[in-house]
């Protein structure tokens, strides 16, 4: 029998069928690679059993290599007509030739071992693929985390304005970002940007861009100067073939004045009473060339006007026939949509209808809408602070908003108004006959707002959240549901002190 049998197989290298020979001259541990064009390959594949190496007559480098290593018998391992590897045996220990029995035995061994080897190879291939896939997923997760970390956690509350943002990364996270930056002089900066490339590299460039931008925004007031500064800082370190498009605008909330510059980003739309217009300003993307200049433009937003900043994930989305959504379609959607947050919802709805149900989002989608609220005063009245008078407040508010809210929302607002009015009468005014509560009801594009003011002066202290189990067990008073209910019933509650009066504002959106 042979002195030793060894084999080594590597299916992932289809260019060569490696073989290993046993004890032999120096270098014999190296597997013998059979080159794809070597005639030995076809010979072994069709041999049908063990072959004597010395008896083969072929002009083959691999054959020569086998002989040099002292290989006497080659046992092909074939499965489904495919050569998986070769068992190479040196001379018998007894120095006699391999017998017919030996060969039959080795042939049977090869026949049984080959399918098992094939299975082992497949398992190994799949494991390798799984590791690659897992690494890819981990990288995506890192990119997602970086991205999310550098997006604003919450948007500033600007009286008289509604800011709404939407961000949805593609599976292979792109480099979209947006930011809303309060500036020292009560103005506010708006940013939407997009880094070319995807994954971790894009996320890292995005985070660097955002940091430099934030630093520049609070020191420099002119949008063009901010983009110049950011560009000059990005150029030296920007990886090849990467750049950043970015729209940067500064809003004065008191006047509605918006000044903006654009580093090659998708042009925002402004929707006014006159229709939809583009906010164009010239400028190269950031990070390509130093000392670029950025054109500045300006516009003034009137009450009821809305600006939509967006990223190319929208206009470059495709339908099943590979047609792009495109700017004209987006402009039409903006023209027919309501202003504010509802505009973002409408764009998403239209985009969804366009791409179809089986669509996998190709690129990040980002939108920021900036709307100057146009308010209408629906009612203003006082109600005396007395037990059960909260019902009067509730009924009078309901009367003026009843055709603006669906029945369920109206019911919820009524409950919140009653609770807020009861708090104002009892805790704010102590049910004093000479201290009425003051109520104002307003509406705008997004919903209705009810302001209830009392003479309390102070903002209420946060109270322990009601816990029914603690209440039933006597560890908490049965009361204390008012604030809890208010917060659960409406879309927003704002508490403030204005001119010595304690004011609670309840916000209920139309939908």
């Amino acid at each position, binding site marked *: 029998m042979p002195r030793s049998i060894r084999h080594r197989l590597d299916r992932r290298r289809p260019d060569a069928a490696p073989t290993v020979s046993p004890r032999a001259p120096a270098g014999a541990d190296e597997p013998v690679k059979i080159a794809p064009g070597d005639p030995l390959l076809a010979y072994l594949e069709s041999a049908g059993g063990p072959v004597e190496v010395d008896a083969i007559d072929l002009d083959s480098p691999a054959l020569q290599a086998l002989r040099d290593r002292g290989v006497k018998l080659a046992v092909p391992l074939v499965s489904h007509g495919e050569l998986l590897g070769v068992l190479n045996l040196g001379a018998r220990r007894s120095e006699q030739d391999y017998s017919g029995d030996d060969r039959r035995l080795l042939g049977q061994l090869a026949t049984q071992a080959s399918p098992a080897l094939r299975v082992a190879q497949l398992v190994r291939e799949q494991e390798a693929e799984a590791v690659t896939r897992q690494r890819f997923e981990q990288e995506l997760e890192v990119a997602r985390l970086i991205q999310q970390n550098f997006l604003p956690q919450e948007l500033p509350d600007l009286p008289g304005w509604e800011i709404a943002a939407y961000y949805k990364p593609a599976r292979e996270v792109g480099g979209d970002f947006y930011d809303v930056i309060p500036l020292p002089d009560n103005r506010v900066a708006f940013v939407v940007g997009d880094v070319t490339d995807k994954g971790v590299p894009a996320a890292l460039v995005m985070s660097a861009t955002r940091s430099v931008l934030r630093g520049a925004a609070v020191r420099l007031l002119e949008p063009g100067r901010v983009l110049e500064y950011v560009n000059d800082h990005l150029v030296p370190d920007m990886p090849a073939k990467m750049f950043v498009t970015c729209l940067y605008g500064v809003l004065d909330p008191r006047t509605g004045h918006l000044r903006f510059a654009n580093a090659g980003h998708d042009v925002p739309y402004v929707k006014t009473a006159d229709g939809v217009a583009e906010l164009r300003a010239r400028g190269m993307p950031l990070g390509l060339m130093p000392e670029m200049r950025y054109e500045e433009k300006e516009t003034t937003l009137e009450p009821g006007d809305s600006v939509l900043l967006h990223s190319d994930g929208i206009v470059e989305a495709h339908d099943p026939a590979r047609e792009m959504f495109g700017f004209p379609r987006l402009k039409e959607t903006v023209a027919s949509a309501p202003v504010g947050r509802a505009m973002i919802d409408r764009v998403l709805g239209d985009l969804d209808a366009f791409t179809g149900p089986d669509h996998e989002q190709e690129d990040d989608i980002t939108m920021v809408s900036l709307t100057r609220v146009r308010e209408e005063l629906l009612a203003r009245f006082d109600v005396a602070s007395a*037990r*059960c008078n*909260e*019902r009067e407040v509730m009924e009078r508010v309901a009367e003026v908003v009843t055709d603006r809210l669906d*029945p*369920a929302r109206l*019911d*919820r607002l009524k*409950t919140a108004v*009653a*609770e807020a009015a*009861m708090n104002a009468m009892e805790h704010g005014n102590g049910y004093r006959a000479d201290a009425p509560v003051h109520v104002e009801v307003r509406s705008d594009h997004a919903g209705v707002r009810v302001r209830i003011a009392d003479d309390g002066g102070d903002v209420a202290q946060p109270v322990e959240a*009601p816990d*029914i189990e603690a*209440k*039933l067990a*006597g560890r908490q*008073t*049965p*009361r*204390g*549901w*008012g604030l*809890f*209910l208010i917060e*659960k019933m409406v879309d927003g509650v704002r508490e403030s002190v204005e001119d010595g009066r304690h004011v609670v504002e309840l916000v209920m959106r139309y939908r």
Partner: protein
Amino acid sequence: MIHLVGDVDATAEDTLAAAFERAAAAGGGTVVLDFRRADYINSTGIALIVGLLGKARAQDLEVRATGLSEHYREIFEITRLSDFMTIEEGSAGA
């Protein structure tokens, strides 16, 4: 069976307490609150119901609620009152 007519707020306290005593004394192990004609329930009313649930628990009585509007059913769920009483489905106005 306790019929709640009109507002379930501070004004209902005495009526509700008296009705509970009668319903509990009547035996049967169950107190049914009929909200069909209760068109306004506020946080004070919820506190009264919490108190009633506490008493029912002490006396080992089951409490059922019927005739709640969809809005108040939602409130009973948000406050988790519904975890401690059986809310019976039933047609009801607002």
